[in-house]
């Protein structure tokens, strides 16, 4: 058996592969998947710290489920911008997209400012705008505070 085959986690017949995850971010993506009730009883395989020409080291997740919902994909794009989501059919990649944070983030992240109206008004959805895609900075539409995406907790 070649070194490559030993190293990689098994192929899946059909489902979703999340690839090119910077090493360490995979655990954060798993947390998002775990909190999605549609993921209950879905087999998931997780590999850490594979060699990667592009990233040096990467994590990888294989999910035996045909689709991820839009909201879950948006959350993944927030915790690890630039990861690749591949759709697999009969062991072949049929679709491949690199996910980036959306410009408008409605009810995806919780504002860190305790004085923000979104923290105090029941039913009011948070809204952030991606104001600096390079630094991954967002601005709360309500209190106008600027945060790094990584500072904020996701609303699952």
């Amino acid at each position, binding site marked *: 058996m070649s070194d490559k085959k030993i190293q990689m986690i098994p192929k899946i017949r059909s489902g979703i592969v999340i690839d090119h995850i910077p090493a360490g971010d995979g655990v954060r993506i798993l947390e998002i998947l775990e909190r999605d009730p549609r993921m209950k009883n879905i087999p998931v395989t997780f590999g850490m710290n594979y060699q990667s020409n592009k990233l040096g080291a990467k994590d990888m997740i294989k999910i035996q489920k045909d689709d991820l919902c839009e909201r879950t994909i948006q959350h993944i794009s927030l915790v690890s911008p630039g990861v690749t989501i591949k759709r697999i059919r009969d062991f072949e990649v049929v679709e491949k997209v690199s996910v980036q944070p959306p410009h408008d983030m409605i009810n995806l992240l919780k504002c860190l400012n305790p*004085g*923000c*109206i979104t923290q105090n008004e029941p039913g009011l959805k948070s809204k952030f705008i991606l104001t600096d895609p390079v630094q991954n900075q967002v601005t709360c539409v309500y209190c106008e505070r*600027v945060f790094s995406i990584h500072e904020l907790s996701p609303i699952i």
Partner: protein
Amino acid sequence: MKKDVISMHDLTLEDVQCYLKTAEKVEQIPLEERFRLLSGKIMASLFFEASTRTRLSFEAAMYRLGGNVIGFAEQGATSVSKGESFSDTIHTVESYSDVIVIRHPREGTARHAAQISFLPVINAGDGTNQHPTQTLLDLYTIKKNFNKIEGLRIAFVGDLKYSRTVHSLLQALMKFKVNEFMLVSPESLRLPEYLKKVNMGFPVTFVETKKLEDAIPYADIIYMTRIQRERFPDDIEYEKVKDSFCLNAQMLKAAPEGLKVLHPLPRVNEIAPDVDSTPHAEYFTQAKNGLIMRQAILLNIFEVAI
């Protein structure tokens, strides 16, 4: 489309210049003629937090344009104290009025009100975030004194962390390409970093100091602020910094002739009373300009040509 005044971020340089021009025109109109301009209109004045100048000048502005005012000056006098939701209060008030002026201790409340109401909403201060009408009247005061805004040197003094008037004015001055500021504050009340990170397309320099004396030879305008006890989570922290700066007439003897001292008021002891009689004191005129600018804002919202 209804016009809201929520944040300086929403206003372009042209919008701001339009407000300044309208205010100039308002000031030229005799009082008895102003009385006819908003006859029959009702302004809802919803102050969930204490205010003297902002509330009174808004209400006086409306009365002097011939309109009427309903509202409250504190949350305790409303159904909110009985547990009514904020959105229910707004929907109730919009049945009785033509424009809503709101002050609230939570940041983002005016934006929320504007989103849920079909009436125009004016932000009269939302927590530590924005106070756009104060900013517009500050700009009007600066323009009246110097006949320009760009190129002026402005020192902000005092509570630069929590003061929404400082935050709003700083952003507005950058729209006018003011690119150098002096920031005078105690360590615990420094300007938040996120306000320095704004990308205006040109470099902006912040000179930070803890000495008020540094500002006097430097600035065209010294913008004083009160150390706001109500914003401190802890009384001990307030006590440590409450008397950090006190500007007096003796200190101003070293000032350039044209230096103007502004303050959004109320003051406590950061400006000694002996400054009031110097030619540098501009804060009471600034408060007076508040009424003019708020009339300009109301006329703009109702699209009354003057």
